[in-house]
């Protein structure tokens, strides 16, 4: 809905009844096999990752999942991944590369989890590695920003060949609350912040940051049109010689 204000869009992106990453995975793939753990120390539940069939073709999915109730929110710390989560995602993306599976990343996060433990475990380093290694993956890599795309925590899974956004989603350098707090030392000026951040899909499409706006799907909706669209995108990308795919991807980010 292009007539929503930026702040209304922020609220829509955060709606608790929005379609979840888990529902999207369930609706888009069959035979989904979830994989756990970063093989170093932990399994971060903020990230759901695994292998599934998209129109009968194997793909790897890594997605950030918020909770739907308090218990799940605590377990998944409100969809803010820890370094272990980013390392799990990277492990699965590297595995996708090994088996020539395209990668679908689903992003819905206010940002990387800001706690002391995550700092000790190298949150900055984890995000930095997802960016630098993600950009070189030799398979098609497509991101959908489903709800919130907050800061480096979202960029860590959005360095691929295509970045799409749902109608009711946002993508910004920082949350509007954080922006208001830094710029005006007043976190209540969220509405102004949302306007200034130009975080709506329309603004970002116009700015060349994203490639396309995808119409909103609700829980329970038939996802076959989205499935076919992604299938088509992966097929198009897979037709490029791998070197050219990676070269184009790097050029995309070089132009910013």
């Amino acid at each position, binding site marked *: 809905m292009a007539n929503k204000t930026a702040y209304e869009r922020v609220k829509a992106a955060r709606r608790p009844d929005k379609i979840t990453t888990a529902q999207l995975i369930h609706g888009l793939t069959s035979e989904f096999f979830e994989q756990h753990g970063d093989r170093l120390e932990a399994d971060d539940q903020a990230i759901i990752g695994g292998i599934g069939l998209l129109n009968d073709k194997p793909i790897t999915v890594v997605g950030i999942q918020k909770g739907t109730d308090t218990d799940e929110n605590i377990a998944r710390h409100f969809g803010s991944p820890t370094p272990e989560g980013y390392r799990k995602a990277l492990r699965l993306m590297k595995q996708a590369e090994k088996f020539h599976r395209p990668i679908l990343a689903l992003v819905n996060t206010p940002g990387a989890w800001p706690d002391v433990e*995550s700092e000790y475990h190298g949150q900055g380093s984890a995000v930095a590695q997802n960016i630098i290694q993600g950009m070189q993956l030799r398979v098609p890599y497509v991101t959908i920003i489903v709800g919130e795309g907050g800061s480096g925590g979202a*960029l860590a899974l959005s360095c691929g060949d295509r970045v799409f956004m749902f109608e009711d989603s946002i993508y910004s350098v920082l949350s509007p609350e954080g922006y208001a707090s830094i710029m005006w030392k007043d976190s209540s000026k969220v509405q102004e912040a949302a306007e200034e951040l130009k975080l709506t899909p329309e603004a*970002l499409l116009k700015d060349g940051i994203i490639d396309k706006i995808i119409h909103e799907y609700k829980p329970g909706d038939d996802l076959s049109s989205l499935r076919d669209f992604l299938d088509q995108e992966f097929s198009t990308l897979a037709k490029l010689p791998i070197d050219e795919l990676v070269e184009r991807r790097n050029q995309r980010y070089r132009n910013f």
Partner: protein
Amino acid sequence: MLRSRFNMPSHEELVKRMDAIPDHVLRECPICHSTFFSLRAGSSKTCPNCGYGFRITAKRRAKITFDSFKEIDAQMTVPKQYTDEKYVAKVKKAKKVTGINESVLTGIGTLGQQQVGVGIMDPFFVMGSLGSATGEKITRLFEEATRKKLPVVMFTASGGARMQEGIHSLMQMAKVSGAVEEHSRAGLFYVVVLCDPTTGGVTASFAMQGDVILAEPHALVGFAGRRVIEQTIMQKPPKDFQSAETVMKHGFIDAIVPRKEMNQTLTRLISLHTKENVYGK
């Protein structure tokens, strides 16, 4: 009798005497809180008590670290599309204070006989934040170093992304990362020196992508700031949780190097990486 000869001055008198000392004569270390005569910090601007390196401009750092330095892309600055008055004024002031046109100074320097690509972030230029032109300058530095087959030495000092440039600031993290990777694939050496403070989007990209990562003593190094942690999840971080020493203990820094030994250490590291590798042939 003694008492009368060494009369303790009154509190008011002491305050008056302290006020008479010009501000720049004495300096307090923000880390160990010792007070000392500014001159004792020397040209390296280091605390004589704990070794903390005070925040310095990029130009000064170039001068005290490298045997020679020649700037590139000196004119590159904030793109004209950003017209917000407050931001424009901030940038104007930053240029005056730092003597450079963006938050990073880039160029080709020498360490001993060896040429190196040099990037130095300036914490006095809008907190060393990562603007579009900052990202562009660093990207060009890596591209130039790749063409000339030179190692890169990068000093980071940054509050993170530049809010005023929004999503374009975020995209610089990816852009620079692409150039770092290309440099790395050419088999070239990249050494980072984390300076006070290195945080946010800079930590989450090129600051953590070096082959060797050094830090200055007591530099603050982290991703999420203390206030963000306190306000978002109501957790109170311990005092030194983001000091270089703590970060090193957790495995993200190779060595902590005092500023006075920086030139020598970098020269040694560069030479270790440029010697002919006879076993690898």
